[in-house]
């Protein structure tokens, strides 16, 4: 046999091998409709949903108001409720008029001004109101209860002012910083960018690696001189760039279409996003290396990355109001660290101490995922 003895030298040609892998992956991204779908179309849908569709601002909750005995005083209080921008009030004389409405969910709460109200007030006693709420939706129930209390407090203060003919000793004047109109869009849109990067980093990456296992191309790659590290890196770089591209698209839309303010620096935005992609990509790699199957990989990515980013990151639900055990779990959700920082970049500006802390934690989580992924992606099958 005349062929020269081949030299097993995996270090030579490393650059070319890596470039070849990246090029291959890029062709695939561009030619595969599903990666375009996940990286660009899905983010757009999400962004439009949060930009236009979903709003956490509460306006005009429907309640029933029962005035059991009409007097100037109760009429005045009722007028206070009717004037509130938070309530849409139906008036009645008897609570029984509203019981069905409350049961059927046509109203969210029922405020009752009892017959004794005027008498108690005149006697200088503290009069009581009864508030019935539909506890099946605790958020709204809380809201009705709090705002009912606030409305009464407001009314009382005004009465005092009128009676005394002088302004109250202390008054509070509220000002909301960073988001003066309290528009939820302004913090939902930055948050949804984290969701989008989770989609690209974890879901898409786990799918494409699992696909290589399914189609047998991974096996063919592994039987070449390419090393496992090169294989992983060749996968990561294109999806890292794709994640950043997708993020950039979202930010441009957020700022120019939805008018979300952008008060921080572009550098902070990219530093945070790039770091977040580490745990996201690492998790994607780990999932695909563990499952080697597209269906399982997509399910796992949705449950272990997408849903936590949605539910346990403080994006939609306040972490402080979660049960303690769930709060612990949120500490390992990378989006938990990205979302507040991103919201800060958009609405407040650069607060580097906060950012650096987030970046450090995300890097730590990322390292754990990478170590696990690298350990399960040896150049071995089965």
């Amino acid at each position: 046999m005349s062929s020269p003895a081949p030299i097993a030298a995996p270090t030579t040609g490393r650059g070319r091998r890596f470039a070849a892998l990246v090029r291959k992956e890029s062709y695939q991204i561009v030619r595969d409709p599903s990666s375009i779908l996940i990286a660009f179309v899905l983010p757009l849908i999400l962004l439009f949903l949060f930009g236009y569709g979903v709003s956490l601002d509460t306006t005009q909750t429907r309640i029933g108001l029962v005035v059991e005995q009409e007097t100037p005083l109760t009429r005045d209080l009722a007028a206070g409720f009717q004037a509130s921008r938070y309530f849409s009030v139906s008036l009645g004389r008897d609570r029984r008029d509203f019981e069905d409405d409350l049961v059927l969910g046509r109203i969210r709460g029922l405020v009752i001004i009892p017959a004794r109200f005027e008498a108690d007030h005149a006697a200088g006693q503290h009069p009581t109101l009864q508030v019935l709420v539909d506890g099946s939706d605790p958020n709204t129930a809380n809201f009705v209860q709090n705002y009912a209390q606030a409305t009464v407090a407001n009314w009382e203060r005004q009465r005092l002012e009128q009676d005394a003919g002088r302004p109250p000793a202390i008054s509070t004047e509220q000002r909301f910083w960073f988001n003066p109109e309290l528009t939820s869009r302004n913090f939902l849109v930055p948050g949804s960018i984290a969701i989008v990067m989770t989609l690209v980093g974890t879901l898409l990456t786990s799918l494409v690696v699992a696909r290589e296992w399914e189609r047998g191309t991974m096996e063919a790659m592994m039987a070449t001189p390419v090393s496992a590290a090169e294989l992983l890196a060749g996968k990561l770089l294109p999806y890292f760039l794709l994640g950043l591209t997708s993020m950039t698209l979202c930010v441009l839309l957020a700022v120019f279409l939805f008018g979300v303010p952008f008060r921080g620096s572009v550098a902070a935005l990219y530093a945070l996003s790039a770091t977040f992609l580490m745990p996201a990509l690492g998790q994607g790699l780990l999932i695909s290396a563990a499952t080697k199957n597209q269906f399982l990989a997509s399910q796992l990515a949705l449950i272990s990355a997408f849903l936590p980013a949605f539910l346990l990151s403080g994006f939609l639900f306040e972490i402080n109001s979660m049960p303690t055990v769930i709060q612990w779990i949120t500490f390992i959700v990378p989006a938990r660290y990205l979302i507040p920082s991103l919201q800060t970049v958009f609405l407040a500006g650069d607060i580097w101490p906060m950012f650096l802390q987030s970046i450090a934690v995300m890097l730590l989580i990322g390292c754990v995922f990478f170590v696990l992924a690298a350990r399960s992606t040896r150049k071995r099958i089965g």
Partner: protein
Amino acid sequence: MTDEPFVRISGVVKRFGKGAPALDHIDGEILGGRITGLVGPDGAGKTTLIRLMTGLMLPDEGKVDVLGFDTAKDPAGIQASIGYMPQRFGLYEDLSVQENLDLYADLRGLPLAERTATYDELLEFTDLKRFTSRLAGKLSGGMKQKLGLACALLRKPRLLLLDEPGVGVDPISRRDLWKMVENLTASGIGVVWSTAYLDEAEACDGVLLLNEGKLLFAGAPSELTGRVADRVFKVSGVTGRRRETLARFLDKDGVVDGVIQGEAIRLVMAPGATPPSAPSENAGVTPQATVTPPRFEDAFIDMLGGGPGGHSKLAEAQKPFANESGKPVIEAHGLTKRFGDFTAADDITFDIPRGQIFGLLGPNGAGKSTTFKMLCGLLKPSAGEGRVAGFDLRRDAAEARNRLGYMAQKFSLYGDLSVAQNLNFFAGVYGLSGERKKERTQLMVEIFGFGRLLAMSAKDLPLGLKQRLALACAVLHEPEALFLDEPTSGVDPITRREFWTHINGLVEKGVTVLVTTHFMDEAEYCDRISLIYRGRSIALGSPDDLKKQVADAACPDPTMEDAFIALVQRSEERQAAA
């Protein structure tokens, strides 16, 4: 050329989970400059053994040395000097032919200076020059396989590992590929070619024959076939019901194996035994047994201790269908199916009289399954009509379906249901209930010996048992017509024999069978076959007729594969002329 083997396998054991090991104490050698066949049915351990040679998998016991490297210690050394084509060719479907080549050239470190020449040579060799800009996903099976080979051959490997390269490829491409690989061995490359086709095994320089993880034989195929030399007979001139005759032969002492071969019966006799005489119904013709060259499969069966008897309990329990009207049971008239601008089946016409086996023979993607599905009412034809037991599939699809039993490719059973649950489910689907349901399922359990396996999940059954269960499910309702889609693909030859014994028995009782296959020798079990190629039926007739059509001075006794290739070429010439 040195005599040092390229691969040395010593005492290799590989287990996956509990149960019997996938490879059980395998020893073997693979030499340079020749094609070594890794032969065995599905699940024999072929792929596992190849993966062990690539260093992608490690043995639990024993060791594998490849080109002087231990796979456990230096897989990188091996991977730098082998070419490996996994089962699905390892190509990126959304990359073009050229891009796939570039990728593998970069990964294998082919120097830029050598590329033009190497690409030229390989594209010439594989005849892919015209297609360099086409996406690999848009290539035909045969072209994909050639591209896979080209990618494995970049930077000339010393050892080429091919995992089932012949699967799903038309015989012409398969022959092309074989020639290419033969040329490579001339330059000293060692080739491992794994296959479940025993006719491919015959052509190898050496074989390792595996069955259920055990090595049955290592050596030259002629050595194995030599063991049954002078013991294989072709009984020709059998008139009348040759399947019944075969069944009787198989039950006789001294008969190791027997199959229908066109109009003759092929028998393997025990050493020293003489072939039984066939009854003569036609005074003019006397059945004659002549010695015929042995095939690999004859020797394989002989080695496994012979095939099963000719007795089918399933057929015994079958009520006979009388042939009253003389009308065909399955009819296809101008069946055509178009998907967009692609015609998957074009004007297919044939009919099958009661109690006959009709075969659709052709490579994957030729249109067999499409034709098949139109006739079971699973696919609506774009034009033409099909009838089963006299019922038009367009108007009375449900009536027609009640009269046919369907055994799908890969034995589509419910993997997560147990054997008993599968039987009950299919009985329910076919409308059996009460006493009859109990009776029929009980009968299947007895006939196929499912007794101890009733609680087992279908997916955990070995391939042969899966096939039995699929057959049981298809015949529960005693159908008049049986549709078998690649019924013996990948199963071991004993299971295949057993399967055909049942089918032959049922046919004797008047059941009509339509079978698709890409096994050339299986086609010879049929009464008539239609060769399907690129959506069209290019020839129709009995296997012997078709072979006679192509016999000439150069090839007086063509095989079914020879006939297929010659007929495809003739049809292409006719088309070119038209």
